[in-house]
């Protein structure tokens, strides 16, 4: 009797795992039906939680393609890169992955992504906005049409600014504040002293788990001290780009004197002026615990759906020498080992173009990647979304491109976090460059 129990238990454990595996091997194409004479094709997709494509867009796809079904696996965003690395090496990777755009070069270089040029309809490639095209191309081939674009802007609590007697920042790009002006406003708006701050000047980052350092949000603090119009061998020029054009050196690009000055300003926000906290506070801006915050156009949807109870406004990103915002966002790609390359490619392209892309842009207020969609979205030329659209066109650059971006991202994020916590900027940036040297050079 006990023996039977043991065997039953083992069966119970293995069955849930084996059954789907067996099912998966055969379920790729199901039996033909009247509606789908070639059977229903199952595509497997890996995506991060709370990121697009959302059910709305997937439903539109299903309606237009009844003979394609989607099996979706979700992981938290922070584990996405690790999971992709592990799955790429395994025997059964998914057909489609949703991943962070700047990783396109490293995935393409490793040969795990499928080039999509053969599947693109005519004119699509020319329709893609420039930063997206640059970010998702490698050695002349396009690996992803892109899904959306996001930029950061400065949100402010209009009621609190009025109460503190601060003139709100301008709403056009030429009226953008400098970081010095922004810092003044943060200090004036902050309430509470020392250990008893009740309202922070600048909200903590919403990205990651609220710890500072995320390259997407915080590297521009350094890059804005650079100048792309300076002579190409000057440190000011190199500060703007933060990595060599071939993506193989950070020495002399990440740790320039200007970058160090930018890092010092960043550190002072936490330690000298103390206008922003070192640890995350959930929903700091919406609950009135911070006057300003840096966020994407997604944030607007949240503020309109759930009224925070105060008047708020949007202004362009502050700058020091040259305004800059990071572009690049979540995107879709087809895995090279997929057994259904054409169907997967069609799915990816459908998500990024036409009615489905329009639906995504309309419902979430993100910026589409297809230029032809902009005329259908008049809200992108009006306040507040026009700020994001114009930033994308005039100030937007991808995060420093490299075939080793994932490693660059981790090491620089850690360095910026440590600088926020008090590490000496020059020493810490030099250490980051030293850690990157063997990795980038390979």
């Amino acid at each position, binding site marked *: 009797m006990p023996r039977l129990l043991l065997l039953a238990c083992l069966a119970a454990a293995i069955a849930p795992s084996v059954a789907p595996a067996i099912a998966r091997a055969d379920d790729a194409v199901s039996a033909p039906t009247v509606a789908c004479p070639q059977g229903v094709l199952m595509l497997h997709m890996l995506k991060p939680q709370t990121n697009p494509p959302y059910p709305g867009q997937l439903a539109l796809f299903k309606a237009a393609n009844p003979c394609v079904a989607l099996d979706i696996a979700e992981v938290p965003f922070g584990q996405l*890169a690790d999971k992709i690395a592990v799955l790429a*090496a395994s025997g059964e990777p998914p057909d489609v992955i949703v991943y962070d755009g700047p990783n396109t070069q490293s995935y393409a270089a*490793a*040969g795990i992504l499928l080039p999509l040029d053969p599947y693109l309809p005519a004119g699509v490639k020319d329709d893609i906005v420039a930063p997206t095209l640059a970010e998702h191309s490698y050695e002349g081939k396009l690996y992803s049409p892109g899904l959306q674009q996001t930029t950061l802007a400065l949100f402010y609590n209009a009621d609190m600014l009025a109460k503190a007697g601060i003139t709100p920042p301008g709403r056009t790009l030429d009226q953008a504040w400098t970081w010095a002006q922004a810092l003044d406003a943060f200090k004036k708006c902050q309430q509470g002293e020392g*250990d008893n701050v009740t309202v922070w000047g600048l909200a903590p980052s919403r990205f990651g788990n609220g710890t500072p350092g995320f390259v997407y949000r915080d590297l521009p603090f350094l890059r804005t001290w650079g100048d792309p119009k300076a002579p190409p061998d000057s440190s000011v020029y190199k500060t703007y780009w933060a990595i060599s054009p071939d993506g193989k050196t950070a020495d002399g690009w990440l740790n320039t004197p200007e970058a160090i000055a930018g890092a010092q300003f960043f550190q002072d926000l936490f330690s000298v002026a103390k206008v922003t906290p070192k*640890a995350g506070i959930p929903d700091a801006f919406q609950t009135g615990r911070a006057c300003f915050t840096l966020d994407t156009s997604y944030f607007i949807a949240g503020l309109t759906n759930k009224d925070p109870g105060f008047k708020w406004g949007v202004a362009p990103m502050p700058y020091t020498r040259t305004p800059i915002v990071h572009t690049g966002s979540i995107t879709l790609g087809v895995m090279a080992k997929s057994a259904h390359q054409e169907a997967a490619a069609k799915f990816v392209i459908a998500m990024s173009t036409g009615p489905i892309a329009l639906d995504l842009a309309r419902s979430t207020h993100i910026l589409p990647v297809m230029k032809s969609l902009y005329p259908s979205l008049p809200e992108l030329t009006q306040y507040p979304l026009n700020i994001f659209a114009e930033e994308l066109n005039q100030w937007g650059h991808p995060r420093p491109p490299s075939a080793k971006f994932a490693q660059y991202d981790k090491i620089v994020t850690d360095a910026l976090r*440590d600088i926020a*916590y*008090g590490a000496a900027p020059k020493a810490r940036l030099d250490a980051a460059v030293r850690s990157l040297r063997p990795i980038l050079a390979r």
Partner: protein
Amino acid sequence: MIRRWVTIAAFIGPFLLLLAVFQYWPVVAMLRDSLYDFQLLDPSRRSFVGLGNYLDVLTDPDRLQAFAVTFSFAAGVVVTVIPTAFLLAVYLNGALPARALVRTIVFLPVVTSAVVIATMWTFLLEPNNGLVDGVLTAVGLPRLDFLTSESQALPSIVLMMLWQQTGFATVLFLSGLQAIPRELEDAASVDGASALQRLRHVTLPLLARTTMFVVVMMTVFSLQAFAPPLVMTGGGPDGTTNFLAYDIYSLAFSLQQPGLASAVSVIFMLIVLAISLLQMRLLRARWAY
């Protein structure tokens, strides 16, 4: 004769087979991987670097820091847990009515998973809203930065391990104390020994074996710590909590250098083996009475 070997194979075969597949083979694979440079994204594209990875480990300040941090963490845990657990065991040895209740409470963190403990303490140590901060403010003590400070992060994690592991060590010490025959203590008292002298000359020597065992266990647990850097600090600030288990994980998965991670693993494994064997040899020393 053959039947006998078939029987033997039937009994120990499955065990040894699984052990070979899931323990021995990965060790061999790890040794092989440490000689190559490749990415997890595309393992077939690998280049032979011989002892290059090992050289990197021995010359890279970040790797050396990970070793230093891990071993000082283990030392910190042993040095704080042993006296605390011993004192607690002595206290419990005398406190008859409350003993069962306290022993249960003290053992709760031991049965709680490392992830749950790390998660709890992330919030407990939150510098603005955590419980520890609340207690410090209520008592009027100065506020601390805990995990966001280079100097406080590692001690904070040591405190967390102390909280988790003390119960385990206490139970062991308690059993050891209760195994000491009363007659020995009484004989010492009759001879005029004070409480302190009894402690030094009777109790402690008889607990030597238990102490050694606790040291071994605490060392092994600490050297393998993974949840704290993953869940709480990401290895920082500035690498001060970059324990080896986490360093190996991030080298392999985030930094795409599994060959280097394997080299670190081999060195780590050899050190753990050496320490464990040394401690086990010391354990053999008998204290007969």
